């Protein structure tokens, strides 16, 4: 014969066990419910990926080289660039300038804080022209307002990230990368 105390304890154990089993079952049910949701989401992803690849293919087909060439021939008439449209460096750029005429207004100079600091550091004699060469203002992207060097670095990172999808592939050419990154940072 069990003592009332012992009976209470075993009932308590049984209750605890029941609660645990119930919780376990509930948790397992929940886990499997989430799993099946994940499966549904995966199915949706697959469906969307297929759709995407279909649209990509359609886009590529409509924009194939043959089509672009015929549009160019009929509608745009663009021609291959000639030698006059390329500049190889500062030297060739300078050819277009004219020497300052006597009495001409002084050229506009643009100040730049970090370069000014450098100038103070290395103001003596021979190092001066080199420092002045660095004093050019960094080029700034017209779209985002940030320095160009950052933009290009970021654009490369974006290009790598998108290398697998169509905008990335289309954006492989350098000019497109800059424009694309400008749009992305603008958002």
């Amino acid at each position: 014969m069990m003592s009332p105390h012992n009976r209470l304890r075993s009932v308590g154990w049984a209750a605890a066990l029941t609660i645990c089993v119930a919780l376990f079952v509930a948790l397992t049910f929940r886990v499997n419910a989430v799993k099946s949701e994940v499966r549904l989401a995966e199915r949706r992803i697959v469906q969307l990926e297929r759709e995407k690849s279909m649209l990509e293919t359609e886009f590529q087909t409509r924009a194939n080289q043959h089509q672009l060439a015929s549009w160019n021939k009929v509608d745009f008439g663009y021609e291959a660039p000639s030698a006059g449209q390329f500049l190889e460096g500062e030297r060739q750029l300078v050819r277009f300038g004219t020497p300052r005429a006597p009495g001409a207004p002084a050229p506009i100079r643009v100040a730049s804080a970090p370069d000014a600091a450098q100038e103070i550091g290395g103001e003596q004699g021979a190092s001066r022209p080199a420092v002045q060469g660095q004093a050019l203002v960094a080029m700034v992207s017209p779209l985002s307002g940030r320095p160009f060097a950052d933009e290009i670095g970021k654009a490369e990172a974006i290009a790598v990230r998108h290398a697998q999808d169509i905008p990335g592939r289309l954006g492989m050419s350098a000019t497109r990368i800059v424009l694309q990154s400008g749009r992305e940072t603008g958002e």
Partner: protein
Amino acid sequence: MSAISASTAIHSGRVQLVNVRQRLLFTARLRIFWVLALFALLALAALVRIAQLGLFEKSFEHQSLSETLLPPRGEITDRNGVPLARAFPAYALWFNPGAFDDGGLPLVKSPEQVARQLAAIFPEMDIDIAAARLASGKPGYLRRRVLPEDANRIQEIGEPALEIPQEDDRFYPQGTMAAHILGYVAADGHGRVGMEQVLDNHLSDPAKRGQPASLSIDVRVQGALEDELRRGMLVTNAVGAAGIILDVDSGEVLALASLPEFDPNKIDAEGQKNMFNRVTNQVYELGSTFKPLTVAAAIDAGVVTDLSARYQANRPLEIGGFKIRDGHVIGASLNVPESLIHSSNIVTAQIADKLGGKALKRTMSDLGMDERPYIELPARGFPIWPKGEWPRLRTMTVSYGHGLAVTPLHLASAYAAMVNGGIWRPATLHKVAPGKASKGRRVFKASTSARMNQLLRMIAVYGTGRNADAKGFRVGGKTGSAEKPGAGGYRRSTLVSTFAAAFPMDRPRYVIIAMLDEPKGTAATSFQRTAAWNAAPIVGRTVPRVGPLLGVMPDDTRDIDLTDLKPLVRGAH
């Protein structure tokens, strides 16, 4: 007693009744029990099933996401990752007359009505043919490569016999472009003709097919080359054209075109006819384009040391009853640069004679002209290579590109070796990582190569290659117009016109070859059939289009230094 007996009688009757009642009750209870047990069993089964569903994974095999998204066949891209061939989940339109399975008519509506409705979706479908096929009651494809929206519209027709199975298809977004490089995938799922065949294992291996296979070609360059070749072929009424652009330092093929082309998206009898690759499979006597190779061999061997030495050029050379002559008398005598500029057979034959058959044969064999061309494509033609010791006449004819027939690809590889400093490398369609180019073998000295660069540039500046001299691109190259051999000797009326060039000559990076098969004299070529008038302009138009894409910018301020050779050419200064 009677009461007792009566009561006994009654009692016994009662007992009987009670027994019956009890039995009935028992049966009823038993039945209820069975029914309840059945229900309980059902409920238990349902609970077990729910628990099973809730507690354990689903029994069906679950594919991982990456497995599902893995294409059935790998993608092929160009060097910049532009897809050239990809798997395409398309639908097909299959006519299944047994869809109703009741022995009745296969269609609900009349075949004509259904055909008309199908033609409304696919305007190019012939109503009569489609109706005849529907009426015939034979199962078969009515159409393949149906887009999803069209598939939905087919469903709306409401004919169970029109089935739309999903199929794994191969699609080439660029259409006919680079068809000879890519090939196609046949109904058995294996590649044919081009890189589809070469890369078949890679493209179908589940471990590898997720990664696209990138080729060495550049779609934009390929497009420009095909475009200009097609134009050249049409304006000269040629039966075919071939072209190739090769990186001289790595052997990578940037573009390779053989016209007329076929459409890998639609393989039919006409397409099968055009699958023949003129660049790698057909051998031609490529004529005067061999002259620079001969001169290079002679300079390299130390036979020609003085470029100003003059050779007679106004009398045909007679060797064993065979006469070597020029198209027209250019002058009484010519030096080496002049002989190349004016393309003189007589002078080249004399140089080859001085060089000797042995040395010329060794150079040609070093340039790979005695074996099939080096490229991955399965279709590679074997050259017509004269075996044994070359007699005098053979040496002379080979020197100007006759008696030895090779593919245009052989010529491209040889020119690449001639201009890149003298290293011959096999051509490849695989993208080569920087610094990973094949080591190759030395054929010419670097000094010979530098001299040849000057001479090739001079041909384009002062000679027959003037039509190829794209402004600012420093093109150098040699024309070649060879008569095609036919029954009973060479046919004077059918030519193979070739222009083999490299650019920019101050530091050659690419070799470009354009070839026309049987061009006719037309108004566009001033009624001329020679390469200077039809093949050279193709190069002259292609180079400005592809140069900037390949990193060669036009520049009027640069050129190869010709000052030491200029005085040797009459009228050049």
